[in-house]
């Protein structure tokens, strides 16, 4: 085949391959096939949640208790929903797609037959998830703000914080999914981890309402930290130190989950 083409090919090959960027490009190309439907879902779900929980349920709460912590319930619950739904999108992007790429459509095998390393495969996919989750968080935030639930300009920072919370969980989800033999484990995780965490991490009510022994459990979850930080930012009650502590905790989850994912996937693929 054309000799000038071979020269270019040869030069490019001396580089260490396409790296994580090539993996992210692959996932984005897959996403192009479904982006319209996910955009509809990611704008419909905040509308439904905010209307149902915030306005419907909120009317009862506000009438009975005069809101939560001095603000109407919809204002209280919106940042919680932002963090929780961002985390759910992140979990959704690092479960079936990870297990599927090992078992059903073994695209990781294809990737690892090239110069790509296991860490490129994990990092590239997480970068794609980051983009996907960020866009979902922005859509949610815009709708929440349009409904008048954002009380401070600091609230803009709730977008990156909720994304950090989602990614902190996603990186661990990746490790968990990469270790599964079948998809039952995914159902179990959504039912017994994601759902309870969404309900009891301060999303819908302050965790002070929980029995005393359950509160420390909520403190451990990444979602509680994301919810707390997002809510403080949106209400304009945040302190720099408080937000930084929450973010640092989430960053530990993120990095730990990434390292664990690389380890688990290597153990699964390089045998």
């Amino acid at each position: 085949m054309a000799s000038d083409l071979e020269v270019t090919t040869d030069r490019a090959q001396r580089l260490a391959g396409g790296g994580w960027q090539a993996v992210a490009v692959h996932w984005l190309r897959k996403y192009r096939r479904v982006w319209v439907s996910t955009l509809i879902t990611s704008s419909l779900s905040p509308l439904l949640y905010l209307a149902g929980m915030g306005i419907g349920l909120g009317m009862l709460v506000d009438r009975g208790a005069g809101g939560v912590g001095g603000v109407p319930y919809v204002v209280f619950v919106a940042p919680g929903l932002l963090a929780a739904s961002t985390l759910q999108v992140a979990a959704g992007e690092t479960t079936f797609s990870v297990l599927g790429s090992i078992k059903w459509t073994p695209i990781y095998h294809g990737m690892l037959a090239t110069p790509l390393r296991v860490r490129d495969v994990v990092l590239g996919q997480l970068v794609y998830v980051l983009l996907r989750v960020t866009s979902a968080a922005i859509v949610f935030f815009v709708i929440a703000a349009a409904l008048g639930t954002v009380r401070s300009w600091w609230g803009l920072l709730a977008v990156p914080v909720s994304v950090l919370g989602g990614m902190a969980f996603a990186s661990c989800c990746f490790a968990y999914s990469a270790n599964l033999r079948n998809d039952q484990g995914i159902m179990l995780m959504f039912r017994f981890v994601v759902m309870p965490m969404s309900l009891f991490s301060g999303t819908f009510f302050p965790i002070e309402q929980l029995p005393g022994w359950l509160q420390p459990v909520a403190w451990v979850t990444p979602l509680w930290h994301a919810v707390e930080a997002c809510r403080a930012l949106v209400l304009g009650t945040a302190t720099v130190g408080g937000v930084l502590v929450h973010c640092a905790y989430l960053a530990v989850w993120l990095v730990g989950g990434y390292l664990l994912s690389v380890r688990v996937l290597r153990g699964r693929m390089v045998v």
Partner: protein
Amino acid sequence: MPLSPSEPLIRARGLVKTFGDFTAVDGIDVDVHPGESFGFLGPNGAGKSSTMRMIGCVSPPTGGSLRILGMDPGTQGPAIRARLGVVPQRDSLDEELTVEENIWVYGRYFGLPRPVVRERAAELLEFAQLSERARSVVEPLSGGMKRRLTIARALVNTPQILLLDEPTTGLDPQARHVLWDRLFRLKREGVTLVLTTHYMDEAEQLCDRLVVMDHGRIVAEGSPRALIAEHSTREVLELRFDTHDHTAHLADVDGIADRVEVLPDRLLLYTPDGESAQSEIARRGIEPLSSLVRRSTLEDVFLHLTGRTLVD
């Protein structure tokens, strides 16, 4: 490049792979030279795929030494893989993407610039006779088309060695012949092919040289013709009888052939001259259900070496 011109592209010495207590590859020595078409022939579970995965630098050897393109897979895996093309036993295509997208994303894995990848993809789809399907999603394509796409994709980096793990298993005869034709072209262009197969006709068609593997060991090595000459006779007379146990007819054919193998459904008589053996059978008044003279194949070599058939 650390590889001197005389050094083989692949050199394995005492190569071992174990999984727990199970020894998949049990100390094999292999040399593959540039431009050669080299085969691993053996039944399922012989250790062919484990060997291929070690050569593909995705499975670290348990013991022995392995050098590929003059490099060490343990420390230079990415650099080696940059110059390999891999066709795995099970297609690893992205079935949600189109045919051409599969080649595009794969080319990016090698760090090839986008215009180069686009141009290569068009050439490769032409080669794989898939140009008309370039924009089709992969999922509904036939097995033969997916296989050809996997091969086209594996060539995107103009590899020095193409590894094919059971390239035609599960394909219908027509699809196999189309694939063989494509591989034959690559061979003529000087691409070094390394393939595994449990089809003797495939090995005979494609391999200049092959090793026969059984239970993780190499039991014979040579060109297909040399192996047949060494371990079999020129012709084989196959006799079927109306009986449950063909051992009962061993005495009848005594002395007619150099060697006789008993299979569950027939006797194989190894002889340089099948027709003479056939007339001798008739002269003795033996009446088999069917009698067929054919040339020896690698299947006979394998049977002789291991006492078992290749595909069961």
